[in-house]
């Protein structure tokens, strides 16, 4: 899985019929210091993520194992919203401190 930030939503009228009703979000990869990198992915949402939130995305066939994406042509899904994280014992992100 990779760490990402929700940076926008994707609206599409002409798409695979199976994708009708699915919430698609644009997410940007983050490094371990929560800094954005240059790569973006369109991911389906299974947890109700919103703009600006730091999330965890699963890719590949595993992305089709949520109720929202089962059997759909999807290869990236948001399956967790990050509350906090630490690397080598150092807190790198804490959602409750954001915007304070």
């Amino acid at each position, binding site marked *: 899985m990779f760490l990402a930030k929700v940076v926008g939503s994707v609206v599409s009228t002409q798409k695979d019929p199976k994708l009708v009703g699915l919430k698609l979000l644009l997410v940007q990869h983050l490094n371990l210091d929560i800094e954005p990198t240059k790569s973006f992915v369109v991911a389906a949402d299974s947890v109700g993520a919103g703009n600006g939130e730091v999330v965890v995305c699963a890719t590949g*066939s595993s992305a089709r194992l949520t109720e929202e994406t089962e059997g759909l042509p999807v290869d990236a899904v948001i*399956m967790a*919203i990050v509350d*906090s994280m630490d*690397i*080598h*014992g150092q807190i790198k992100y804490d959602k409750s401190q954001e915007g304070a």
Partner: protein
Amino acid sequence: MNLAKVIGSLWATQKHHSFIGMKFCFIQPLNEKREEVGNPLIAIDPDNQCGTGETVFYVDGGDAATIKEGHEMPSDATIVGIVDSMSTDEGS
């Protein structure tokens, strides 16, 4: 399966229900000499047994989704064991 070192952890209250009771870890893949290779990633620790600094092995891709019988989860990297010791022809 691949070798990796646990370098951190991640907490999430809002997550897919199949992950309830499981921990997310940041892992850094290692080669056979235990040197870091590639980029760090997030893996599921299904039994909550790993701590930062431990060497583990994990499965990735679609195999990571069904490590428990009858329990499918949207995971593409799952820790399946903690390394006690390992040796190669060149030594431990």
